[in-house]
């Protein structure tokens, strides 16, 4: 006897059959998975797919995060990071300050610099180009994963260029790929309520797909645990899956747990462990054309991130030293893990740690 195909929730059995036959799951399957009380059953299904794709490898990256400015014209309700230019705590780094940050850590084996900021009304396009060029000059080998699709659209406005031309210019200056932020939840209802000024879902997808066509990979995210319904989550995933069918440039999907503290939605409760693991697992199952699923340990804590490796995630992000966006929102997690801690955590989960670069090439240790 085995318990592999035996589920506490019998509704999972037909989905198991599909997973075994490698069939694409539909919207109803996605909802059944989200609604199931059988967390471990859902995890088991996701783990089947994860093992098929990545065996027991667990990826991590040694990267540096840089939040060049928190000034933002958008004022999204779920954001604890963006500030109006005249608000206390608003900041923007000069190019010199940025270069100093990079120089500080030149001795570390950093393979990627991850750059995001708010939508600054005044900084000129040249600031961004100079930032990329300057960093590349200091660290020629490093990969620059910079500017979410939302920032790219904003830069295109500032530069007065098309998105494609903007991206090409940034690519020439050293841009390597785009992070996945700003997707939030694609539902128009949610966006109308929480971030009406933000780049629309079709705009967001168009920037990503343009990037893909220019040979730039991007990631994708979903911010969950605020006002969205399970249907809206599934629809979000399906829309990403359809876009990926067309251009194939998404590398990684990263579900982002909403942290209500210090946001305009502070009355909401944070996500639970069930929800965090469920989102990873459902994403792994629905996004059959996404190579990677990342559990961002900064967001959900190292304990849950460790567990997430059994729930569909194959990547737990980096040895981050400081990460401002989540911590301003009160994430109760440590600010950094040493490489030794990270390796221990991965091995205790029964996985083989693989240090990767941005494009998931293994970095020989």
């Amino acid at each position: 006897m085995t318990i592999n195909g035996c589920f506490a929730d019998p509704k999972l059995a037909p989905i198991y059959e599909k997973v075994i036959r490698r069939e694409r799951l539909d919207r109803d399957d996605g909802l059944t998975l989200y609604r199931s009380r059988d967390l471990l059953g859902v995890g088991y299904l996701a783990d089947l797919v994860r093992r098929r794709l990545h065996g027991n490898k667990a990826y991590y990256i040694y990267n540096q995060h840089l939040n060049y400015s928190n000034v933002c014209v958008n004022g999204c309700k779920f954001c604890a990071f963006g500030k109006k230019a005249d608000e206390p705590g608003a900041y923007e780094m000069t190019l010199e300050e940025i270069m100093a940050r990079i120089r500080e850590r030149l001795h570390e084996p950093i393979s990627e610099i991850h750059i995001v900021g708010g939508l600054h009304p005044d900084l000129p396009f040249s600031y961004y180009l100079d930032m990329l060029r300057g960093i590349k000059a200091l660290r020629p080998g490093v990969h620059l994963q910079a500017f979410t699709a939302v920032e790219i659209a904003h830069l295109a406005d500032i530069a007065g260029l098309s998105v494609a031309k903007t991206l090409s210019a940034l690519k020439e200056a050293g841009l390597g790929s785009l992070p996945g932020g700003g997707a939030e939840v694609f539902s128009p209802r949610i966006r109308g309520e929480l971030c009406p000024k933000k780049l629309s879902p079709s705009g967001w997808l168009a920037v990503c797909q343009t990037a893909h066509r220019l040979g730039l990979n991007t990631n994708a995210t979903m911010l969950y645990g605020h006002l969205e319904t399970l249907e809206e989550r599934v629809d979000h995933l399906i829309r990403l899956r359809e876009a990926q069918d067309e251009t194939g440039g998404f590398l990684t999907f990263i579900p982002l747990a909403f942290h209500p503290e210090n946001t305009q939605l502070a009355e909401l409760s944070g996500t639970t462990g069930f929800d965090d693991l469920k989102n990873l697992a459902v994403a792994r199952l629905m996004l059959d054309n996404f190579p990677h699923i990342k559990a961002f340990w900064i967001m959900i804590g190292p304990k849950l991130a460790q567990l997430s490796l059994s729930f569909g995630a194959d990547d737990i992000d980096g040895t981050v030293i400081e990460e401002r966006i989540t911590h301003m929102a009160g994430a109760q997690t440590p600010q950094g893990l040493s490489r030794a801690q990270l390796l221990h955590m991965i091995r205790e989960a029964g996985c083989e740690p693989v240090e990767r670069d941005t494009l998931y090439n293994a970095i020989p240790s």
Partner: protein
Amino acid sequence: MSRLKVIDRILEGRRLDATDALSLWDLDVLTLGRLADLVRRRVHPEPVVTYVVDRNINYTNICTSGCKFCAFYRAPGDPGGYVLDLDSLRQKLAETLAAGGTGILLQGGLNPALPLEFYENLVGFIRGFGLQVHGFSPPEISFLARQTGLSVEDILARLITAGLSSIPGGGAEILSDRVRRAISPNKCTAGEWLQVMGTAHGLGLKTTATMMFGHLETRAERLEHLMRLRDLQDRTAGFTAFIPWTFQPGGTALGGKPAGALEYLKTLAVSRLVLDNFPNLQVSWVTQGAKIAQVALQFGANDFGSTMLEENVVAATGVTFRLSREEIVRLITAAGYSAQQRDHVYRLVGEGGQGLTASCCSSKPLPPTSCRGLGAGCGGREGRSSPRPSPHNTSFPKVAIIARVGAHRDFLARGVEYRGEQRPSTPFGEANPVHVFLHDGVEFAVLSRHGEEGYRVSAPFVNDRANLYALKALGVEKILAWCAPGAINEAMAPGNLVAPHDVLDEGKGGPHTFFPGRGQGFIRHNPVFCPGLRQALIERLADSPFKLHTKAVYVGTTGPRLETPAEIRKFAVLGGDLVGQTLVPEVFLARELELCYAALCYVVNFAEGVKDRPYEPGVLFEGLATAAEVERVREVEAAFADIVLKLLPELAGTERDCPCSRLMERYRRRGDLGEDWRTWFP
């Protein structure tokens, strides 16, 4: 022992030995979790998670023990030592009451300056506030015995007299003397710890047991710990719950890195699988945080622990998770369980109230469970049973409802397809007529215990044996008994539904067995009611408009007279919730015929003396209920057929993976009874 073998053993419900248990560690975390969850669902079919509202009070931090893992203690004479004064205590107790607390977890260091009277006064003082005292772990008890020269038994007896209600399982650490010598050489030995617990159980005290792991013990030593607890529990059945938690190195002399979440969850799951005689498993949110604690509910745990209004010992290591009661309830609910408050001896608070002993809570292995999914690789499935097409156009109802007078008329009135009446002959006399219906492809039988008209057959004269024999002869496998008891427990109001889980037989009538004078019929009744049917009906009725109590002890009396107030008081003391004349001996007889049997009761009145209801000539139950109560009872009565139809697919579809179908197996094996039950009665 290969990994598959151990899985087999678990699926078959067999006890794991040390070798099996060690091989569990080779399983991946999901498989281990799913197995533990399977066992958790066998032990607690209801999707309920309990929690206790209490406060930790550490009466002193002065301690001579100096355990290496402890960041809380001060040696006598060190700065920062304290003994709690009465004023702060009073304040803390008042706050606990205000927060809806039911008790105090009372623990402290081993402080040589405190006499036994200090402890007695402390306990009495707390009891004076109406709070339970869950206090003094075994190291404190052994220490007191050593200090005073009294025996452990005497110390416990004095504390019980002072009002102690249960003992927390702290100080167990790892019950292996090698480990204890290394980490807490001055604390009681493993043997002493177990002896204190055994003695406490002997005196009727319930206790919990803990395990602190993730320091310098091996996995084999963890298992040794579990085995020693299981052995003691086999003898005393005094443990209510097991609580494993991870050693927190911060601020302690041991240092090192804490065990990760994976190791915690695996250990929890292994504990659920090995400790087959422990009713409850508690998560440790204090060491794991809210998220992992919630996830732990899928790894075998069924209790969220305490709101811990104050936690000094772990807080001293720098781990300071805080959870409010609302947050605990939210976490439980978000995981798909219903949250219920309990007290320190695992009785539900505010509802049911009759203890949370598990359906398995015995020393013997659990009943086998076969898998319920449809996936590949599941042996022994029967599939959802659709009605078997009958060869001779006779009916084969698998499910029967035994209910009140003329119950079949409710189905006729609803236009349910009627397949006719049957009256099989039986060696036990005449059975009542059996009416067979077909609804949504499921055939079911309805039998009225008390006759079809009036109330012709009063309780003591129901021919249970003939009725049950007749049903069995028709092919019935599962019985839902519908009955109308009175409530001893005030939380069960008239008009409420109750699915009792246990029975107290206070009847004097008979016959009680199908096997008089034949030396057969020794059957264990734990659980009394079929766990599968019970779970099905509890799940299916979760959204019913009638309040449903999922645990209750049913007291069976003989009748036809109603009970006296003194009898009801006696039953209340014995733990009875409901009283009625119907289920006993029906349930026991049904089990002798290897039928799955579950009861769904609706409360018709408060039992005599529970409420002050003066005698009224000419009325019976109505006299024991107010007009509003009578109205609610009528509503449930009117809904009877709808409730049954709603339950029907679940009742029919539940697989018989419970022990019910093989209850007489031992007699078959001995050759006393033939394989076919029809040969049992000449």
